[in-house]
């Protein structure tokens, strides 16, 4: 039953094509959370957007156990992550994380790991290849160097979005902030800590383009220093949510989509579901709880598919018992989309063990080897 439904959607809506690149290569389109509906015994298969599945209350079907993984390898650096699957004539095919962004996102998250591997394996099985062949498409694989990816792939959401800050100097009456070089890797979750008034927010706002400064900010080696904020594609979440009071929840979240002319309703509903706020859609923003407001604020930034996310004290205004929940969510979002994230805070408890931590002190930024003492039970 479920299979048929899925098939139907695949046929009538052409969702299959949606994640087919026009250049006859198989790619998983940016930001699409993909689930493969596949029953391995025969040719029953279908692909769906996860959001689509949510919308129609479809459950996805697990792959049968007999599909075994031949090899999965991914190094510390996300860029070098790859999977090797057997190809024809015993030749091994490498699939890089870049080209199967979502697949690798799942790979790094234990619960969906098997699913992702099975999906990738299926794509490279004879059955899978036949399916693509019927559609006149070829699989995109064997890219030894992710830097060689075509531009349209590089700019996809979540791919290769490192940020470099060079010769950054800000001078104000009461303090100055000087950063010679700071590189935040693609998909990294970085903390910036420091006491109140040290210039944490100012630094973050400089990256977003709200503050003038001498220096260079490179996103993906592209100089964005002189770009106005609306052209930078950077998501910003403030401590006090700053939900537009004259708009309801839905219009708040849709605001950025309208401004950037993004018409991806699947993604909109997917994010709502992911952040568990879909039941709030028609509420006014005034009488929501802090946790709900921060989720909406996060959703509002995410639906515009930002290249990087900036959090300015995202947990400070929240009740103690919600903090760990939201913190967990922020890290999950970072993991799922490999969304480069900078998290500014004064509270060391928010730091999670393996993240890099920079401390603003004496007007400069120092990387700190942070030894975890205690945190929000994350």
């Amino acid at each position, binding site marked *: 039953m479920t299979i048929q439904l899925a098939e139907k959607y695949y046929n009538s809506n052409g969702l299959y094509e949606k994640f087919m690149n026009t250049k006859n290569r198989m790619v998983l389109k940016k930001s699409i959370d993909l689930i493969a509906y596949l029953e391995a015994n025969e040719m029953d298969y279908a692909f769906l957007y996860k959001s689509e599945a949510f919308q129609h209350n479809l459950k996805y079907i697990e792959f049968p156990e007999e599909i075994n993984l031949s090899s999965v390898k991914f190094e510390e650096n996300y860029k070098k992550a790859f999977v090797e699957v057997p190809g024809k004539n015993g030749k091994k095919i490498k699939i890089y994380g870049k080209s199967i962004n979502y697949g690798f996102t799942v790979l790094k998250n234990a619960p969906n790991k098997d699913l992702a591997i099975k999906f990738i394996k299926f794509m490279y099985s004879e059955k899978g290849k036949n399916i693509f062949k019927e559609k006149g498409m070829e699989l995109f694989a064997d890219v030894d160097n992710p830097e060689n990816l075509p531009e349209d792939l590089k700019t996809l959401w979540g791919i290769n979005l490192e940020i470099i800050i060079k010769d950054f100097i800000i001078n104000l009456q009461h303090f100055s902030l000087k950063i010679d070089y700071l590189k935040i890797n693609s998909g990294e979750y970085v903390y910036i800590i420091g006491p109140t008034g040290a210039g944490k927010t100012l630094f973050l*706002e400089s990256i*977003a*383009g*709200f503050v003038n400064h001498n220096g260079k900010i490179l996103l993906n080696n592209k100089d964005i220093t002189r770009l*106005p*904020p*609306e052209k*930078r*594609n*950077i*998501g*910003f979440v*403030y401590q*006090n949510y*700053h939900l*537009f*009071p*004259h708009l309801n929840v839905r219009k708040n979240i849709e*605001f*950025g989509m309208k*401004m*950037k002319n993004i018409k991806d309703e699947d993604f909109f509903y997917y994010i709502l579901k992911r952040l568990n706020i879909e039941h709030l859609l028609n509420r*006014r923003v005034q009488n929501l709880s802090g946790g709900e407001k921060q989720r909406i604020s996060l959703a*509002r*930034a995410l639906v*515009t598919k930002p290249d990087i996310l900036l959090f300015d004290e995202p947990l400070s205004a929240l009740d103690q018992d919600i903090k760990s929940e939201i913190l967990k969510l922020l890290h999950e979002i970072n993991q799922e989309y490999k969304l480069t994230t900078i998290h500014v805070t004064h509270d060391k408890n928010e730091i999670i063990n393996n993240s890099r931590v920079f401390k603003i002190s004496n007007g400069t930024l120092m990387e700190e080897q942070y030894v975890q003492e205690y945190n929000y039970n994350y």
Partner: protein
Amino acid sequence: MFRNIIIIISFLFIIAIILPFLTVFLNVDYNLLFEISKSPEFLDAVRTTFLAALLATIIAIIFGIPFAYGIARYDFPFKSILEAIVDIPQTIPHTAAGIALLMTLGRSSAIGKTAGIIGISFVHTFWGVVAAMGFLSFSIFVNSVKEGFKKIDVRYEKVARSLGATPFKTFIFISLPMIKHEIITGSLLMWARGISEFGAVAILAYYPMTLSILTYDKFQGYGLKQALALTALIFIMSMIIFVIIRIIQNLWKYTESR
């Protein structure tokens, strides 16, 4: 004890406000009141007053909102002086302001001559009334809107920018809707203040007569009885207007609290 003192003082205060109203309505000749209410000169004055005040307010909205935004958002030298200049018309006697306007907009002035070419004169015309009302009450509107802009956290605008809105779109879709109450309240206050303007209007444009000029004219030419009837009429109209404003405000509060 303290409570009682407060109540007594408040009571005296209210009496002081209501007493003139009561006196008017106790002494007015109601037949004359009805007669005047139907007279063309009264109806003309009503039309002139309300339209001129409305026009002055619309002009203030068009120019005042960008100005107030600039004052609230940007830092530049002599900003506080600029803010003070806006308040000048409120601090000088209105007749003096009228003389200044007459000199600036009069037939022999540069502006008066230029306007004369396209057939507009400010002296003893409807446009003169608009100019006098606008000049003396636009600061009420500007100050109301300016306080509104100052009250909004700039971060709302920053968030909107980060979500892809240009400065113009941010202004239209975020900043303006967020201060809609200040804009409406400021417009109403300015409009009401324009209606009651006398000094400057009397000097720059005695004709066509506004309600305040007509009252003065009746008092000077026909005596107290005529003027009293007119006054009662104006009171009634003002009360109706302010009851309507109050109803609107309460409606807002109702929809806001939902």
